[in-house]
């Protein structure tokens, strides 16, 4: 039997997600792809009489006539619920300081005929005593139950769950009608097939919707006359004075660049401590496991310490950085700064065929392209949205960080400029910047090349500044880290197992004999992985890569972060087993390796620069390909994306290597 559902609907910035987080804690899963702003999360909550209930946080929307993909998701869920006849409660979360505008959505949802509850949120901004009158007004005039809460401070949450319980149990016991109302039927005719159909909607339909909207607002204004709104004076939120600087055409951009610089500097400085800690724990655990397993089964010990552990360690080591990145993004978003950056950048982004709203996914792309691709859903124009998706993988995601960190050591000496800026840190910044520049240039190409029609809008609410909610500051990043470890973990474990098999066995060696120790493990060169790498070598030789790097390129096609694990596996396997006691760190082993037949180090400057550039540009991430496929609903765009980024990476690496030789 399907559980009763509660949908949280409301305008963007109404505090819906804050209420959702406050009600559910960490016990929720993503109903869809997670994103920074555009997320559709669901969780099971326990209500006193109804019992297990699914709570769904729908994307924000201003009306039930959607214009963007995220709005469509929300509207479709509501309209479909109206025709399904399952016990459903729609909760409309309203920013109490913005009642007038929210009434449009309320009046539309009211006509769906679902059980309904209004939650007047953000009551810190409205003098509370007067709110009683507004609640009364909802019950008497609108015939809707309403209540007051402050999700940010966690005030009134008990009353909220109690009301949910009451409304839902009424809905369960009332006769559910499976007949969609007239309104839902006509909605389905226009939007049922998705947003594309709406673009071709006739002028007559559009005119009808406009007339309806005017009529609704006329009736809303009529009924609001009796609403004691004037008794609820809006308390001043944080002053908007900073906008003089933050929205200044020059000052605003300078501040934005400074915020970004601070973010990355902090990211590298703060995250390195927990990262080192995790790395050491993994080393320690690996060594202990080896000592325990080795006497019983050398093969199993080999599999675990050489195959699995480097792979798992490679995932876990990212967690602090991903947490910090998301913490920053939540801070920027919740304080209201992100909307201002979108506003500020729209003019420039429009010129390169993107949208002000592209900035949120682009910044999210520094963390991970997969949720960022989903976060493009609030961009109305399909062309701008598509361009954003296409260039997103050029933003250096956190999976590139360990690759950069490992390789930079070979290309740039340690040392400082002016005593504070580390050379290697600056190089890292340079690589990020290079990705951004490549994204801008690619967007320009897309602008002239993509032939997709559709309206282009930029209409964005600029919310009042507010302090971020402390709960969201740890919950959202933590949720993201868990998702990452689960998602990337699977891929990496599978790939590292596969790599271990390929690297441990070879043609001409009987697997059973190798496993039982009757035959020695083949040298890497003679293993399947080695054969594969050798086959690839002619193609990558001009970039300065040998067959071992070739193996890493192949394995890290699934996910870039596998590169480091692959290097660890390759150089772990290559080393003399007797040397294990004084285990050399990966870096030293890589440094000792030379180009075959010469004394030249394999990881020489030219080759390392070439490799860095390759990783900055190449689309080595199966999850991104899958996300693009899902969001564009075709194989055309992910394949184009894969092809152009691979070509870009290859040619750029070729140029760098040949030039710096």
């Amino acid at each position: 039997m399907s559980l009763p559902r509660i949908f949280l609907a409301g305008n963007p910035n109404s505090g819906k997600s804050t209420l959702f987080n406050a009600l559910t804690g960490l016990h929720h899963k993503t109903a869809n792809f997670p994103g920074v702003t555009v997320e559709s999360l669901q969780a099971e909550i326990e209500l006193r009489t109804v019992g297990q209930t699914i709570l769904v946080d729908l994307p924000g929307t201003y009306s039930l006539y959607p214009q963007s993909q995220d709005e469509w998701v929300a509207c479709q869920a509501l309209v479909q619920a109206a025709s399904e006849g399952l016990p459903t409660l729609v909760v409309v979360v309203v920013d109490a300081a913005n009642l007038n505008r929210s009434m449009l959505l309320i009046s539309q949802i009211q006509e769906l005929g679902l059980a309904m509850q209004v939650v007047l949120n953000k009551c810190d901004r409205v003098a509370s005593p007067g709110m009683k009158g507004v609640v009364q007004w909802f019950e008497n005039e609108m015939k809707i139950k309403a209540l007051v809460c402050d999700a940010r401070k966690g005030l009134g949450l008990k009353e909220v769950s109690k009301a949910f319980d009451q409304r839902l149990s009424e809905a369960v016991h009332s006769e559910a009608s499976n007949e969609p109302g007239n309104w839902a039927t006509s909605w389905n005719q226009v939007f049922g097939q998705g947003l594309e159909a709406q673009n071709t909607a006739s002028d007559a339909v559009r005119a009808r919707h406009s007339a309806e909207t005017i009529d609704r607002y006329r009736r809303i204004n009529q009924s609001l006359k009796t609403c004691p709104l004037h008794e609820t004076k809006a308390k001043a939120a944080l002053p908007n004075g900073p906008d003089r600087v933050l929205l200044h055409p020059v000052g605003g951009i300078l501040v934005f660049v400074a915020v970004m610089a601070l973010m990355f500097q902090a990211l590298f400085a703060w995250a390195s401590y927990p990262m080192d800690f995790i790395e050491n724990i993994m080393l320690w655990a690996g060594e202990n496991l080896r000592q325990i397993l080795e006497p019983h089964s050398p093969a199993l010990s080999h599999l675990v310490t050489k195959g699995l552990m480097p792979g798992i360690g490679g995932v876990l080591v990212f967690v602090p950085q991903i947490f910090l990145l998301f913490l920053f993004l939540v801070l920027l978003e919740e304080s209201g700064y992100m909307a201002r950056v979108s506003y500020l950048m729209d003019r420039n982004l429009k010129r390169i065929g993107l949208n002000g709203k592209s900035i949120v996914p682009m910044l999210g792309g520094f963390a991970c392209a997969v949720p960022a691709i989903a976060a493009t859903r609030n961009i109305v124009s399909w062309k701008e949205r598509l361009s954003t998706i296409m260039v997103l993988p050029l933003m250096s995601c956190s999976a590139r960080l360990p690759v950069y960190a490992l390789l930079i050591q070979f290309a740039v000496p340690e040392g400082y400029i002016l005593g504070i800026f580390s050379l290697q840190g600056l190089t890292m910044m340079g690589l990020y910047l290079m990705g951004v520049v490549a994204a801008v240039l690619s967007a320009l190409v897309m602008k002239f090349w993509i032939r997709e029609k559709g309206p282009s809008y930029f209409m964005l609410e600029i919310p009042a500044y507010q302090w971020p909610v402390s709960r969201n500051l740890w919950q959202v990043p933590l949720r993201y880290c868990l998702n990452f470890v689960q998602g990337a973990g699977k891929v990496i474990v599978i790939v590292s197992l596969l790599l271990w098999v390929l690297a441990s066995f070879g043609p001409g060696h009987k697997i059973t004999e190798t496993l039982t120790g009757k035959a020695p493990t083949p040298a890497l060169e003679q293993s399947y992985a080695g054969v594969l790498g050798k086959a690839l070598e002619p193609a990558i030789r001009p970039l300065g890569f040998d067959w071992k790097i070739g193996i890493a390129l192949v394995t890290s096609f699934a996910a870039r972060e596998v590169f480091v694990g692959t290097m660890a596996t390759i150089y772990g396997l290559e080393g003399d087993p007797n040397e294990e006691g004084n285990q050399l760190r990966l870096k030293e082993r890589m440094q000792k390796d030379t180009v075959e037949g010469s004394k030249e180090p394999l990881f020489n400057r030219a080759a390392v620069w070439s490799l860095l550039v390759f990783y900055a540009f190449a689309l080595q991430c199966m999850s991104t390909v899958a996300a693009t496929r899902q969001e564009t609903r075709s194989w055309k765009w992910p394949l184009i994306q894969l092809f152009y980024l691979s070509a870009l990476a290859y040619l750029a690496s070729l140029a760098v290597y040949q030039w710096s030789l």
Partner: protein
Amino acid sequence: MPQREGSLDQAPMGVPLLIVRLDESDLSLKLMEMGCLPGEKLEIVHRASGGDPLAIKVMEYVLGLRSREAAAVWVSWGDTPLRNLWNPQEP
């Protein structure tokens, strides 16, 4: 100040404006849903250099929009604001 009328992208900043009408376009529905209705008061609170984008205060909140979108909104300003054309009986 004498009575003036014009499109929102050309209107002065920091002056109370009254929405007279919206152009028939695919933008107008979205604008109305966001609160830009005939008869509604608004004010331009920020304008980027070159006039694009601009931020308006309408229905107690701030909305950022492009000048192309603002061009679809026809406003009046001055001493005696025009009456709401959609709703002549209400000022």
